[in-house]
């Protein structure tokens, strides 16, 4: 029994055990106070599918040796542009959803490339620079949202007819299309199979990517640039590939997120969206040098479940809401914890 526990501890690491313990404690409290478990689980599953792709976007940069992509906002902004174009064209349902992704791709590739060129010039400080690239591109895009030539009356301000609104409702466009796809209900329990399936397919594609020739090169150059060089690989190029892939996943991620949320949030909203994703993959056990799909799945599941059930459960036990505070403590604390282990190897 003890040995078995030691083995689990060694495989998962202490931080994960603590968080798993915390999540379990919340479920027990929920059960004890007579809350229905079904809706809690269902809501958690939706949150997992909703955020998973953004977390997945961290994998390529870590594998490429760039570290955590704190500038994920770059990809998010490209996704938003794609979604807006799709809305402007009046595309609805799945057509609108996939068109949004399709339109965002060229932007994501170009922006990712430019971002990578910059990151290649600041090796060793990618995460710091990335954070500020994210912040400043959000600010620049604030001007774009005001001046962009969108004409759809449901998107622009009612008065003046110029400039996009802060929050756009997706109901008539592609809101909840994935959430509703293959939604299986058993009593109070709901399983958004379509949403989770989409996330699963993307995970599989990223996994396959790292088995291809170029994917192996990206990984090798990330682990040991000098080894890669001796094998005829240009580490700068593989880093670029990693950053572009991450940016593209960020763009897809925000469209998945938005359809699930039902709204498209512009202006300052994307500023901090990368941080929960960073926290989630770290909670899953990734380090600054090693990230696997399993870290993405485990981390997203733990982090989002925690956030989803913390609010209803704690508000039942103590009056008031600590979920937002808990979210900030956990996400920022986890990032801090990971960054203090620069080498990334000894992280528990």
């Amino acid at each position: 029994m003890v040995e078995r526990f030691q083995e689990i501890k060694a495989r998962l690491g202490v931080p994960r055990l603590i968080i798993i313990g915390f999540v379990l404690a919340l479920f027990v409290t929920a059960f004890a106070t007579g809350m229905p478990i079904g809706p809690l689980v269902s809501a958690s599953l939706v949150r997992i599918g909703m955020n998973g792709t953004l977390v997945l976007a961290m994998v390529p940069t870590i594998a490429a040796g760039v570290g955590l992509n704190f500038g994920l906002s770059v990809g998010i902004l490209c996704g938003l542009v794609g979604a807006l174009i799709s809305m402007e064209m009046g595309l609805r349902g799945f057509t609108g959803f996939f068109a949004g992704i399709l339109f965002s791709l060229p932007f994501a590739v170009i922006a990712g490339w430019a971002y990578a060129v910059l990151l290649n010039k600041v090796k060793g400080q990618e995460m710091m620079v990335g954070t500020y690239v994210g912040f400043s591109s959000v600010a620049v895009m604030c001007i774009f949202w005001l001046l962009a030539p969108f004409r759809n009356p449901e998107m622009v301000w009612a008065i003046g007819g110029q400039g996009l609104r802060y929050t756009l409702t997706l109901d008539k466009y592609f809101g909840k299309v994935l959430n509703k796809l293959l939604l299986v209900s058993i009593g109070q329990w709901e399983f958004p199979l379509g949403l989770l399936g989409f996330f699963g397919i993307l995970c599989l594609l990223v996994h396959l990517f790292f088995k291809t020739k170029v994917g192996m090169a990206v990984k090798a150059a990330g682990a040991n640039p000098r080894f890669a060089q001796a094998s005829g690989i240009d580490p700068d190029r593989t880093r670029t590939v990693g950053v572009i892939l991450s940016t593209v996943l960020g763009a897809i991620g925000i469209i998945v997120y938005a359809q699930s949320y039902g709204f498209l949030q512009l202006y300052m909203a994307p500023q901090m969206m990368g941080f929960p994703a960073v926290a989630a993959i770290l909670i899953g056990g990734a380090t600054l040098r090693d990230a696997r799909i399993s870290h993405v799945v485990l981390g997203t599941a733990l982090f989002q479940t925690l956030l989803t059930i913390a609010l209803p459960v704690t508000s039942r036990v103590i009056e008031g809401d600590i979920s937002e505070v808990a979210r900030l403590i956990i996400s920022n604390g986890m990032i801090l914890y990971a960054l203090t282990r620069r080498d990334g190897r000894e992280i528990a």
Partner: protein
Amino acid sequence: MAYALEMRGITKSYFGNTVLKGVDIAVKSGEIHALVGENGAGKSTLMNILFGMPVIHNTGGFEGEIIVDGQKVEITSPIDAMNLGIGMVHQEFMLLPGFTVTENIKLNRELGRPNIVSRILGKKFELLDMDQMAKDSRQALDKLGVDIDEWLPIAGLPVGYMQFVEIAREIDKSNMRILVFDEPTAVLTEAEAELFLRAIKRLAESGLAILFISHRLDEVVGVAHEVTVLRDGEVVGHLPGSEARVDKLAELMVGRKVERPALPPRKKEPSDDDIILEIRDLSVDMPGERLSGFNLKVRRGEIIGIGGLAGHGKVGLANGIMGLYPSSGTVLKDGEELPLNNPKEALRRGFAFVSEDRRGVGLLLDESIENNIAFTSSQIQNRFLRQRLPLESLQVRDNQAVRQYALEAIKNLDIRCQGPEQPVRRLSGGNQQKVCLARALALSPEILFASEPTRGIDVGAKSLVLDLLVRFNRELGMTVIMTSSELAELRMICDRIAIVYQGRLVGILSPDASDVEYGLMMAGKKRAEVS
């Protein structure tokens, strides 16, 4: 006359591996004592002991005693050594580039002038007495007989002058009695070196005891009053300066009976009629191992050794041709020019490289054995890929082919492991090296560069690795260019051995050439000059 410094019966082992065996050395005041020996002879370990470096005490200390001015002393830290008046001039300069010569000489020993604040708050608040400091520096520089303005900043001084500032700093310390120079002339030009040698003669005349570590034998012969030769951790010779001659020292330094095993015969012996690789005027900018104007012709099917002392550029050759460090010149393979600074092209043209930096360049430590073996060849030759997609870079790894090849390699090269999925980090040095060799072999190269292939692996594994190189050469007809600091192993398996000195080829020796010839060539003397 009493000795200023005596070290008696110094024995030191690292983890059961004895690196110094009963070394005795004694230096008189006013005398220059030279310590010579090959790389790994134990010179640096001896100096680490003298300076009480932590690396010695963390590994179980040493046996023997150190006597300064007739008194037995315990030196447990570099500060103890400093207090006893033992100083060291480092190989790398420890100078602040933005500070002036004076400031550097007086660094951390500044002279102060008391003022009101310092009377209340203590010595740290004294103002600097720049004039006095400059005067002291001037005096130290004059003692060396060099004419450097003490007000100049370090940045921008020629390298040789930096060396003098470094020395001036040591002799400015008032209690300095014993001064150690570790390869002081390695970075100097010839004119600077001459100036330097004159300076240390003056220092000795002023009464300092000087311990001079070098492997430039001609310098040693010129200045030393006494010479001690170290080989494999033992004193193999001790002679007065008047009897020291370059060839004698060289023989003592290298001297080692080498058993050359009978190597399997070839169908056709390599000859100058069939040149596979011609290197003309190659310069490689590899820090610490620079090559400049290197020329060599490599015969098809031979094992050629590249020897020479550390820092003279032998390692730069392979790294340069493989495109890992900036290089210029002409490299012809089969008469065709190889584009330089392009690792991919070098690999495509049939070169493979086993790096001297096994853990840094040679391996992906956290990847499995099979991934390491298959990696380069899948990137360069598209081997081990499932060729279903037309787009080459998106072809997926063929796990089955990789596994099959890895299992074969593990068997053929006798890699001791738990299986092809074991991460290479957990393998022993020798087995890691075999993985590196297997990775090179997967490329089916025509020319294999093996840089220091036996460095840091145990004796048994060494001979296995050497056997593998011979097998690659004899069975697969691979031309092997092997670089090694261990002359003995070069002489064991090579057909010819090229000696590099200061970035250039000095000459090519047969493995049966005498120790004297090797010693001299490694000290930069051509055969014709031997008389």
